């Protein structure tokens, strides 16, 4: 009791001290005096208000954070192998990383986007693009796992992706690096006029979320950088920013920066649907992988698709219009009403904002200012809604708070700038540490943003954290934007380079998160759902072990009759049906990762024993008080041995 009184007294004193200090020098005490710590503090056992899905950049993955705490919950493997979760290592998920180029263990994941219904976040799926070997992945938010990956043919550097339309009708993909379409053995010097871009529309089944490459639009050989969908009145349009309208093929940093204006390509995808219906497409031969993970079989399958429907923007009127936009625009962002399209001209000090109404008016009155490869170019002055003047240097991305404000990142001047939609005046600016790329407001690219926080994702951190050798942490910063002025609350490290993020109120996701997989619904080809079905089966040199695991043993735990040169498949089913009781398994000398198996799930690893002896395997996830006892042995005999297979558990 004395202790309590004493510590309360100390607390009280320090509080008084704090408050009085705050009053005197609130300016140099920064975050402490303004209560930033309190604003990001989530007490033990309590929940964050938002989920933030932050791209892993060159890690190829997607990380899940809580806001405002900045705590990391999970790294969801998407395009890169993950030995921790056996992603891309076990037999079930290897097909997820299949492409037309074979098995690829890595990609560069950039832009997550959450599925929408009526222009609002619905919390069912997150889509994210693979930039290097063009792909789009779908993460199912009931399991927080990647359940589908589709490769994009006729595409290179899938950067303007993976953004969804207002009702998740489509996810888009676009070529950053134009290429010969179809691919051909031609000189790179012949780029101009011969290289093409493609904009792909991947339909999403409203019932089961299944993705299908519905059609591609063939475009001039520009670089298609980013995209965002129209909403409200502009629903049915998708806007893509472009650079390198010079069509340079070497020293792009100079040669692609010569034109005063590049374009935002406005694509009327409803028109595209009409053209598809009317049969105005050509069917091009293609070869691309479609990989689907089935939750009931706990197994992925990879199918090669052989065709794609292509619409040629040059010959189909009304499909695409080009909006001149200054200085190699990067981000292409649409405000919550759908009226304003922001072009973030990255070599400029200004922000260009186009008006959808004006665009439609200009189209209807055919106020064109020439054309590029048959695609009408609208007059800059006719579509311009306004300019945010001298807002900063190097604008990259803009999000909105739903209160009539835009927030734009400026890479070169390293700051977030808040400005008013409509009057285009700058309201506030806050520095970023350092060189901010993307920013994210939960729902900031939907009809209904949740404008409480903005997360800035920085490209450089330098001295912000304890050094970790030449390679230092990547980082994000959280700002409170509920007031007139923005306030920096928190720095937090991220996985890989965070390019973009998508945030959503936790309530829209949490309740749907699964706890276990029901054993009775396990349709895995090699599932063993009762101890009675445990067996070991030889088929020539292939041996299949039908194994179960439950606290705290494997069944069987001893196996004899395996021979050098065998290929042993361990099909292991976790019989647990309790929340948060995964088991792991690994075998000495197995040339693969461990398995980490959730309750009710079956996974498979392959072991090819090369040496005679008795070799142990064990549970790798501390599962229970008897975890250390959760182990077993396999006896490996010489290839010439005629020892029969036998297996056991207990005496």
């Amino acid at each position: 009791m004395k202790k309590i009184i004493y510590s309360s007294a100390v607390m009280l004193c320090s509080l008084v001290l704090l408050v009085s200090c705050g009053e005197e020098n609130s300016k140099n005490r920064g975050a402490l005096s303004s209560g930033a710590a309190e604003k990001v503090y989530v007490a033990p056992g309590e929940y964050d208000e938002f989920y933030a899905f932050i791209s892993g950049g060159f890690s190829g993955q997607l990380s899940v954070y809580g806001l405002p705490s900045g705590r990391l919950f999970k790294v969801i493997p998407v395009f890169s192998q993950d030995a921790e979760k056996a992603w891309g290592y076990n037999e079930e998920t290897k097909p997820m990383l299949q492409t037309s180029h074979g098995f690829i263990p890595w990609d560069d994941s950039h832009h997550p986007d959450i599925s929408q219904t009526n222009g609002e976040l619905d919390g069912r799926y997150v889509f994210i693009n693979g930039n290097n070997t063009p792909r789009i992945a779908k993460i199912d938010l009931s399991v927080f796992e990647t359940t589908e990956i589709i490769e994009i043919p006729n595409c290179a550097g899938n950067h303007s992706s993976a953004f969804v339309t207002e009702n998740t009708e489509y996810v888009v993909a676009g070529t950053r690096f134009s290429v010969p379409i179809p691919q051909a053995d031609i000189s790179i010097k012949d780029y101009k006029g011969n290289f093409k871009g493609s904009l792909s529309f991947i339909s999403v089944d409203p019932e089961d979320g299944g993705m299908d490459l519905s059609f591609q639009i063939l475009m001039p050989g520009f670089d298609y950088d980013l995209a965002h969908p129209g909403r409200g009145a502009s629903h049915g349009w998708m806007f893509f920013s472009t650079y390198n309208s010079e069509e340079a093929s070497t020293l792009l940093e100079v040669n692609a920066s010569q034109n005063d204006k590049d374009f935002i390509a406005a694509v009327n995808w409803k028109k595209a649907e009409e053209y598809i219906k009317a049969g105005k497409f050509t069917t091009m031969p293609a070869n691309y992988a479609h990989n689907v993970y089935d939750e009931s079989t706990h197994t992925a399958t990879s199918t090669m698709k052989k065709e794609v429907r292509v619409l040629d923007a040059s010959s189909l009127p009304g499909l695409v219009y080009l909006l001149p936009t200054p200085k190699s625009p990067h981000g292409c962002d649409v405000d919550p009403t759908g009226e304003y399209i922001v072009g973030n001209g990255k070599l400029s000090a200004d922000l260009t904002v186009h008006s959808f109404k004006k665009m439609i008016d200009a189209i209807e009155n055919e106020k064109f200012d020439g054309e590029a490869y048959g695609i009408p170019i609208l007059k800059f002055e006719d579509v311009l809604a306004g300019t945010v003047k001298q807002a900063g240097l190097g604008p990259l991305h803009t999000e909105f708070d739903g209160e009539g404000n835009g927030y734009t990142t400026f890479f070169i001047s390293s700051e977030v700038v808040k400005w008013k939609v409509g009057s285009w005046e700058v309201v506030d600016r806050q520095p970023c540490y350092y060189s901010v790329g993307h920013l994210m407001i939960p729902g900031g690219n939907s009809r209904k943003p949740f404008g409480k926080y903005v997360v800035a994702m920085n490209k450089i951190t330098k001295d912000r954290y304890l050094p970790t050798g030449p390679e230092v942490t990547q980082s994000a910063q959280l700002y409170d934007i509920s007031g007139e002025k923005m306030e920096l609350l928190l720095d937090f490290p991220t996985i890989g380079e965070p390019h973009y993020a998508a945030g959503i109120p936790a309530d829209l996701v949490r309740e749907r998160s699964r706890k276990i997989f029901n054993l009775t619904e396990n349709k895995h080809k090699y599932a063993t759902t009762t101890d009675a079905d445990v067996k070991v089966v030889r088929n020539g040199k292939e041996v299949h072990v039908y194994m179960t695991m439950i606290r705290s043993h494997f069944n069987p735990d001893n196996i004899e009759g395996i021979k050098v040169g065998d290929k042993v498949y361990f099909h292991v089913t976790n019989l647990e049906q309790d929340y948060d009781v995964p088991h792991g398994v690994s075998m000495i000398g197995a040339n693969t990762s461990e398995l980490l198996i959730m309750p009710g799930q079956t996974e498979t690893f392959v072991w090819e024993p090369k040496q005679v002896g008795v070799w142990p395997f064990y549970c790798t996830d501390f599962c229970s008080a008897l975890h250390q006892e959760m182990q077993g042995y396999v006896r490996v005999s010489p290839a010439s041995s005629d020892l029969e297979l036998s297996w056991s558990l207990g005496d």
Partner: protein
Amino acid sequence: MKYSRILMSFAALLPLLLFVFPLWSITLEAPQYPTPLGMDIYINDFADKNPHDIKNINLMNHYVGMKYIPEAIPEFKIFPAGIIITSVLGLALAFLANHKWFLYWGILMVLLSAAGLYDFYLWEHDYGHNLDPKAIMKFTNPDGSAMGFQPPLFGTKKILNFVAHSYPQLGAFSLGVGIVLSFIAYWKGRKELKLTAA
């Protein structure tokens, strides 16, 4: 129809709710189980409170050598038969018999319920004390005797890291109210008799 006979009819019918609602419930709380594990005991079944609870109780209990909670026990046949027979009997009495029989029926039900509770206690005792000699973990009481893990018959008890609650449920209350009603019916019947006599 006389008021006492209507009351007695209800008294006889109420125990039938045991076929709808659980008789008893045992709940186990532990830090690792923010949602407690629970088992509802019906007169003809053991049921999970939340999916897979019994499986998970068994998994916990196997560490200290307790037997698995059986899929079925003989009581699941005897109890329902007992309830149906006594209900039919009660109804017959309500229509045909002298009010004194209402009292006898009530006493019979009290005795049968007591027997049922005793049976439940015996099962619990066996379940908590008849442990596998090869149990993974063996605990002893301060006096050196082997620790038992019997859940309480009625009430709350701490067993190692678990807090066990054992309380009657709606089915048991229906039975109880039925018995009380039979006594009231008897008392009413007596008053009605006096009135007609006077």
